[in-house]
């Protein structure tokens, strides 16, 4: 029995929708089977809270008097891209201040960058603003300095080109020295294995073939409400999949958008990756409408069924060999230890599992209260039959 998103929204409005988290759905499917779960449940809520480097914000400052066309803009000494109209900029999460030592003192600490600045904006902190220009007849001013807070801005939109990666690598280090990566500190000789996915809580792993998530899907973004804009950069739907359609390597991605003024610093955190750089940890939750049994089955997937490649970040990753050392399941990764080449290797996560659980819970509560309606996708994301291939720069 198939349901439409419209029908589910009617139920939500009447307070009659049955909403469960991804974890509860897995239990339900185990206990009662896919058929019953598909009839019973209307919406499954998912969540993920991890570093997502390809993120940033569009800011509009309003005009100075006399007017100025910003050609360079710095916020707390971090340069924002000003190659747009007069008073718009884009500030990226990984941008560093101009005087930062970066990796000159290896491993660099990267204590403050774009991600932290975005968090500070949401915290309503005062930010140093500085702009330069060359001056025109209509925009004569050449310099401007002030302090701003989020409230002073006309608009502050988060627009993240690539978030919510569907599956990701597990990173290890086969070399004999510690390496510092965006996947955290990796100790020598398989000292640890770091992963970064919420596993069966992860949004795109609950709708692996993008049958319900698409352009216009309403989502939980950074504590506020946001939308899926389109598939994200590096979206590679043709990745190898298991019989349930779950990809075994990093695959789909989302471009998402939301209003910074609605967000909370609990779910938007600047992070410093030792020896690597700054990133932004973002909380994302996506409701999956259980439109049919197939979706019920994929929402019922457990961590045992989801695997990811183990990649050596000392050699294979930087050299882009595409090699992996094998596959491990998220249930193994979450147990705290995996076995690799006959060695017991402790595992660590970079994405927050308690964060993912909490987001799925918040989303569930908001839908049950009728405060969050499902967005009907205007078009679906490119799927496995799209032929899209992940290209490299030659």
């Amino acid at each position, binding site marked *: 029995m198939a349901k439409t998103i419209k029908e589910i929204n009617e139920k939500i409005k009447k307070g009659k929708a049955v909403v469960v988290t991804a974890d509860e759905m897995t239990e339900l499917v185990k206990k009662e089977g896919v058929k019953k779960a598909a009839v019973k449940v209307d919406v499954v809520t998912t969540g993920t809270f991890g570093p997502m480097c390809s993120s940033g914000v569009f800011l509009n400052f309003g005009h100075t008097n006399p007017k100025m066309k910003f050609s360079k803009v710095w916020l707390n000494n971090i340069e924002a891209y000003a190659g747009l109209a007069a008073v718009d900029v884009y500030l990226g999460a990984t941008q560093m201040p101009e005087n930062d030592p970066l990796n000159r003192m290896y*491993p660099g600490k990267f*204590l403050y960058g774009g991600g932290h600045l975005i968090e500070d904006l949401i915290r309503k902190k005062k930010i140093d603003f500085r702009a330069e220009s060359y001056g025109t007849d209509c925009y004569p001013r050449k310099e401007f300095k002030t302090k701003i807070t989020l409230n002073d801005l006309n608009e502050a939109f988060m627009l993240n080109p690539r978030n919510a990666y569907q599956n990701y690598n597990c990173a290890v280090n086969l070399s004999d020295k510690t390496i510092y990566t965006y996947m955290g500190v990796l100790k020598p000789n398989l000292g640890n294995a770091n992963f970064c996915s919420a596993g069966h809580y992860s949004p795109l792993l609950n709708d692996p073939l993008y049958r319900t998530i698409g352009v216009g899907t309403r989502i939980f973004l950074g504590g506020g409400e946001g939308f899926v804009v389109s598939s994200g950069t590096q979206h590679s739907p043709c990745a190898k999949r298991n019989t349930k359609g779950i990809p075994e390597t990093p695959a789909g991605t989302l471009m998402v958008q939301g209003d910074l003024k609605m967000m909370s610093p609990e779910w938007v*955190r*600047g992070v410093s990756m030792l020896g690597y750089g700054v990133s932004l*940890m973002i909380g994302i939750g996506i409701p999956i409408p259980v439109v049919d049994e197939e979706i019920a089955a994929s929402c019922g997937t457990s961590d045992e069924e989801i695997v990811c490649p183990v990649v050596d970040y000392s050699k294979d990753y930087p050299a882009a060999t595409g090699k992996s050392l094998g596959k491990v399941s998220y249930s193994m990764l979450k147990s705290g230890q995996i076995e690799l080449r006959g060695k017991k290797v*402790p595992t*660590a*996560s970079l994405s927050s599992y*308690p964060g993912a*659980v909490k987001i799925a819970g918040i989303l569930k509560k908001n839908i049950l209260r009728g405060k969050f309606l499902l967005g009907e996708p205007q078009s679906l994301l490119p799927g496995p039959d799209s032929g899209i291939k992940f290209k490299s720069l030659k």
Partner: protein
Amino acid sequence: MSEKQVSKKIVLHFPKSLINEPIVYRLIKDFNLKYNILKAQILPDQEGLMVMDLSGKEKDYKKGIDYLKKTGVSMQLLSKDIRRDEDSCTHCGACIVICPTEALRPDKKTGKVIFDSEKCIACELCIDPCPVRAMELHF
């Protein structure tokens, strides 16, 4: 009204010229402080080193430390203290594989990361690898 009590482990360096002065005696007698010597030693260069647990009323403690500084004895706190900013920690788990003593370890039930300060040896290894820098060094 009972006054606030303090108790701290401190390291004292006595320059050669002060080694025979009754400094510790005066500290106890004039400032009403209690002490427990954990280590006392004359170093090869004739300097004195003493590690002690010093306690008493906060006001007296402050006066005692001021007195010590005036005499020319140099002083540092011994125990570095590692704390976790609970509001900041996201319970990601990146620190678990870094900590050598299992002071940071997963709670299997909740998936959260436990910080057990009893087990912490203040090695500071977890400070920089924590993405949100929730582990803090206090003196």
